[in-house]
């Protein structure tokens, strides 16, 4: 039975892609944008761009007002206690690098950082490189058979030497929610700082950073239907006080002379230089749009499509799904067929999915795989998108087998 998406028409690019015979199922990489975002960008640029937090003139005041309104909207979206706990960065990657550099002074040789075996490179490499700079031990938390961090082992591995735990909320390869609550509580009891990479998790459902109770929560705008070039850090108040500035420059400074300077507290002390003003305003507009949707209807729609995806994959011979995906996506390999060949033939048929290591090389290697195909869904996908994918997959397999 056809399952339409009631929100499809809100995303003009979907119709444009359809005219180019493209079915977009690579939403975990980035998403299409709602008309509300396009309108906000166009309004900002058409009505007078200006730099924020600097000028006394009217365009500057308006831009600053819109920029700070977005901070409030992000705070509301995450149920943060205070908008001043929201830092804008240039993406989730730069957010995680800010944390790895801004917290570096807290680490001493022999300290441990714990990350999970399924981390995206963005939440692995900044910690790996920090460990190398400071002579720390990077502890890798292993996974269970379903693709979740193995709780029992993790609780053993996170100990008194652990100074920081950095884990994903939702795996970008396995589509599994991670058991954050027990891990975060245990790490905090050991005196460790906690970082949650919400890049995938924030897109599915609403998450309350106060209930989540981590020191830092990070996500990127562009996976949440917002513009690229914008990342977000929510920091707990005490944790933000321990974070030192990483990048230095305009507007993050309080007083500067030629030989020394003092810096502003969060958030501005961590937003050196001109921020991505239009992008931040656009993210605010996107959140307004998303906030107006029936969250239960969105979740039900996504869950139903996800079930159809998993069923369709299970129905076909020789397909092995990685882990036990719970939401949004599924990665798979096919017996005797190279994923590059499948990817090639899906592309020929206008199916936009992702093939390869999904920026998680160690995870794929741990699974004994060179790569996998990933299909990832968004709220504007409908059952016809999946049908086109499965038809194309069947055609590809017929050619290859």
């Amino acid at each position, binding site marked *: 039975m056809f399952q339409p998406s009631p929100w499809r028409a809100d995303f003009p690019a979907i119709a444009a892609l359809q005219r180019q015979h493209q079915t977009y199922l690579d939403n975990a990489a980035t998403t299409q944008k709602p008309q509300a975002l396009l309108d906000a960008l166009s309004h900002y640029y058409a009505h007078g761009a200006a730099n924020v937090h600097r000028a006394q003139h009217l365009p500057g005041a308006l831009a600053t007002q819109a920029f700070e309104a977005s901070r409030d909207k992000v705070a509301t979206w995450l149920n943060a206690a205070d908008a001043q706990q929201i830092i804008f960065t240039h993406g989730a990657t730069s957010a995680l690098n800010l944390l790895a550099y801004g917290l570096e002074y807290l680490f001493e040789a022999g300290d441990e950082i714990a990350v999970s075996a399924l981390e995206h490179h963005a939440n692995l490499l900044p910690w790996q490189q920090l460990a190398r700079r400071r002579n720390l031990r990077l502890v890798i938390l292993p996974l269970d058979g379903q693709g979740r961090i193995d709780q029992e082992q993790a609780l053993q591995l996170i100990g008194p030497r652990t100074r920081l735990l950095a884990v994903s909320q939702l795996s970008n390869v396995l589509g599994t929610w991670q058991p954050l609550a027990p891990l975060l509580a245990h790490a905090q009891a050991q005196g460790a700082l906690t970082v949650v990479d919400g890049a995938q998790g924030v897109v599915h459902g609403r998450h309350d950073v106060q209930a989540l109770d981590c020191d830092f929560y990070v996500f990127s705008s562009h996976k949440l239907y917002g513009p690229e070039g914008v990342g977000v850090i929510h920091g707990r108040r005490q944790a933000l006080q321990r974070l030192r500035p990483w990048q230095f420059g305009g507007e993050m400074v309080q007083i500067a002379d030629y030989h020394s300077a003092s810096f502003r507290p969060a958030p501005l002390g961590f937003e050196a230089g001109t921020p991505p003003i239009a992008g931040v305003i656009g993210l605010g507009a996107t959140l307004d749009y998303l906030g107006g949707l029936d969250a239960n209807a969105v979740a039900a729609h996504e869950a139903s499509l996800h079930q159809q995806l998993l069923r369709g994959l299970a129905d076909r011979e020789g397909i092995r799904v990685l882990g036990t995906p719970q939401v949004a996506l599924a990665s798979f390999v096919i017996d005797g067929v*190279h*994923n*590059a*060949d499948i*990817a*090639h*033939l899906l*592309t*020929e*048929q206008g199916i936009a999915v992702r*093939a*390869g*290591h999904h920026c998680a090389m160690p995870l794929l290697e741990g699974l004994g795989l*060179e*790569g996998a195909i990933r299909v990832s869904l968004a709220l504007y996908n409908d059952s016809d998108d999946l049908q086109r994918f499965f038809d194309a997959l069947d*055609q590809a397999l017929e*050619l*290859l087998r």
Partner: protein
Amino acid sequence: MNLSQEASQALESFEQARSWEQRARLLMQWGEHLAPLDAVEKIEANRVHGCESLVWLVAEQHAGQWQFKAASDARLLRGLLALLLVRVQGLDSAALAHLDLRAWFTQLGLERQLSPSRSNGLHAVLQRMAQLASDA
């Protein structure tokens, strides 16, 4: 344009291919022609990185003429490599440097396979070849 007999054959068959299925079938057929590499040639030094599959390129110069061998674990890419080799086999460095390989794949109707975003390996292989030609 001076095409070898094999290259002319390739051009003829791909020009007649009307659909993506026909092109895919032809690619797989051409991939079968690719001479296999010896195990000793499948070494790290011959690996071409930047591909989603394993790709090796072995280049030798005999009396100023390039002789290439290539292999991949992905079938369609093997076809693309075979089509590349029939065009460049036996060229000297100057001819290789001047050869417009994009035009060659465009003639075959396969230009989209060259896109750097495809990460299918062909783009990386061409870069390696250009480097070899300019270093020689």
